[in-house]
């Protein structure tokens, strides 16, 4: 029986078996503390530096520009607070659809006296580079725009924003957590000074991520203690995690391009199937400038979470665009920023595809989703004309 179909790869992914295999020796024989001088420490340090090289190679940057953190959230916090802390005051430009790791961090900085501009997006979820240009003030110290939005998958025009930042001498941070290892990025050409990227979205382990810090970028550290990671980030390094991350990136380097083509096709087939089977459905996010595996749809007159639960009961894992937590259902702030009407936004569902998904998975989803939506609509007073 099929019955278990994971379509939530933007949330997390299964660790690649080769990655697990690469990590195992570092739980066992190579368990030393990389700060230790002796052989046990050297072996651990070696693993760390191989991973750093794998990632630096992939990003085509210098090893010294890559540091490791505990997750995408920490990378975002460090990038933004690190630059802000080095300057002490000033103005930050970001967008309304950033991940909470960026938004909440900016809000905290606002509380400390920094000014923040949250740029709007258009109906496809795109930030307008001209808006960025217009928002720049003499005291702007940082521009932080995500590479792709995790909910709708829209890929932001970072290639146009970076040069604007460079021209004004403002560091540009890109939250690349959702694109790293999925969509190519040219840090040099795009004028990116800081890039957050993570492991568990690309078949690496949880608990590890990275931050690219272009040489010369002035920043303070955020976590204090020993002199690890070139004094950028204190704390004993998560060696097995980092080794696994390096391996995951190495695998992505060889699989990424073909996988992007395959997932785009799969996702488009899914959307075509939904469209032909379900009434009153709309696609969220840019029609083409979008993460290969991401499909975000709104089903009018049905509440997201009831679809998620209904699919879950059929073994299909998707995520709700609106999260009904602590008694508060809120429509996704991303969809609201994109101008999706509320009665649509409440019914958004995100399916995000990954390496183990097959045509059969999509067929199965197309078999169970339409009758579910129909059933839920039949219960709903709103659906009654």
């Amino acid at each position, binding site marked *: 029986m099929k019955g278990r179909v994971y379509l939530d790869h933007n949330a997390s992914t299964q660790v690649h078996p080769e990655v697990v295999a690469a990590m195992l020796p570092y739980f066992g024989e190579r368990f030393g503390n990389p700060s230790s001088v002796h052989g046990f420490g050297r072996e651990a340090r070696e693993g760390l530096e191989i991973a750093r090289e794998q990632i630096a190679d992939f990003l085509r940057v210098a090893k010294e520009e890559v540091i490791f953190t505990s997750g995408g959230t920490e990378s975002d916090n460090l990038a933004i607070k690190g630059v802000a802390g080095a300057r002490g005051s000033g103005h930050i430009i970001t967008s309304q659809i950033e991940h909470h790791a960026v938004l909440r961090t900016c809000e905290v900085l606002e509380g400390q006296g920094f000014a923040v501009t949250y740029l709007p997006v258009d109906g496809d979820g795109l930030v307008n580079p001209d808006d960025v240009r217009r928002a720049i003030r003499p005291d702007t110290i940082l521009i932080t725009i995500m590479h792709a939005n995790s909910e709708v998958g829209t890929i932001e025009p970072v290639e146009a924003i970076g040069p604007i930042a460079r021209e004004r001498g403002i560091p540009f941070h890109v939250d690349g957590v959702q694109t790293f290892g999925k969509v190519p990025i040219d840090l040099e050409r795009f004028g990116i000074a800081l890039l957050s990227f993570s492991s568990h979205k690309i078949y690496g382990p949880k608990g590890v991520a990275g931050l690219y810090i272009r040489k010369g970028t002035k920043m303070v550290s955020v976590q204090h203690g020993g002199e690890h990671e070139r004094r950028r980030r204190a704390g004993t390094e998560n060696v097995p995690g980092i080794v696994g991350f390096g391996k995951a990136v190495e695998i992505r380097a060889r699989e990424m391009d073909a996988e992007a083509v395959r997932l785009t096709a799969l996702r488009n087939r899914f959307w075509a199937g939904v469209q032909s089977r379900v009434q009153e459905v709309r696609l969220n996010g840019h029609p083409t400038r979008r993460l290969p595996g991401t499909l975000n749809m709104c089903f009018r007159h049905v509440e997201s979470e*009831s679809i998620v639960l209904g699919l879950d009961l059929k073994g299909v894992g998707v995520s709700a665009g609106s999260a009904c937590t602590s008694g508060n259902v809120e429509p996704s702030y991303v969809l609201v920023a994109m101008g999706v009407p509320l009665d649509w936004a409440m019914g958004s569902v995100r399916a995000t595809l990954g390496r183990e998904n097959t045509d059969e998975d999509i067929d199965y989803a197309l078999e169970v989703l339409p009758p579910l939506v129909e059933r839920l609509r039949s*219960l709903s007073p709103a659906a009654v004309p």
Partner: protein
Amino acid sequence: MNYSETLIDHFRNPRNAGMMREPDGVGEDTFDGCGDLARFYLRVVDGRVVDVRFQTYGCGPTIAASSAGSELATGRPVADLVAVSEQDVTAAVDGLPDERLHAAQVVAGALRAAARDYLSRRSAPSGSEVRQHA
């Protein structure tokens, strides 16, 4: 979410879903502008609920609670129903996670509203009846 089997069963196979023509009482409740909405229709004979229908828009627990609430209401004196509580509904789905207690609130609220609607239509001194069973 860890939902009870009872809840899952009501979600999968909702009882008494749908509209009712010319009901004897109808009431609805929504939650905090969260969008969740439950509407209940009652058929009453001799002061007793003989048939219930519901229409619900909301997350899984709200749908399940509506179904369970409809069963809970069936056969009951309307005068009872005006006092149905969130706890009654929660118990009917074998418990709800803290973050989903609103499901029971909406359903209990809608059931009470429908009961009150029936009583007020009959121009009965509904206020006193409510007090009587509160």
